[in-house]
């Protein structure tokens, strides 16, 4: 898993990719599991170019999210990786 950004400056936004998996594929499988993430370029094409990626998956954690939501996200990502990793 590649997590983008500077950890010391990051707030609750978590943009990531899994090597070999297209961000959109990850997004649609998480969506099917009831986990909402944003995928794509997030209207930041120059940053995507600088990172040499076509897009990222972005989990935006808010005040109403709890530990269970985080566990669901982690489990969902693992499940999607199993389905998509070839």
């Amino acid at each position: 898993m590649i997590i983008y950004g500077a950890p010391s400056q990051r707030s609750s936004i978590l943009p990531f990719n899994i090597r070999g998996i297209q961000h959109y594929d990850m997004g649609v499988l998480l969506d099917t599991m009831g986990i909402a993430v944003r995928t794509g370029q997030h209207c930041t094409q120059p940053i995507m170019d600088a990172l040499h990626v076509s897009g990222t998956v972005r989990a935006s954690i808010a005040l109403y999210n709890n530990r269970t939501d985080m566990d669901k996200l982690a489990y969902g990502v693992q499940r999607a990786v199993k389905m998509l990793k070839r």
Partner: protein
Amino acid sequence: MAGIQENQQALSSDFSLLTNWEEKYEFLIEMGLDLPEMDAEKKVDKNLVKGCQSSVWFDISCQNGTLSFEADSDSLVVKGLVAVLDRLFNHQPAKDVLTADLSIFDELGLWRHISSQRSNGLTAMMAHLKAAAAECLTEEN
């Protein structure tokens, strides 16, 4: 060669064995992986389908009123949807492609699992095929 109707029935029969969304997506991904790789030189702007969030290319040809195509996507799930279109419509008479619809995706139980953006993409792919079918018929006449 089987027609669109027969292809649709065969696909429905395959999907009827799958009981949940996970199995359906896995099957769809497998179908996509079974599609032959498209040559890099065919992945050009003129073959790119507009309206899809991921990149989808269709290289379409028309011969004696029959539509044939090679297609690919950088997304495995979308490539699976492309594989469904391939099984249904590849090497079919252009006139049949022109009158076909996407109700099969309802029948396969896929439509409710496809996000609105992805269903827009699917509609865009179908529109792209239909435009090529219309052009193919015009060339024939």
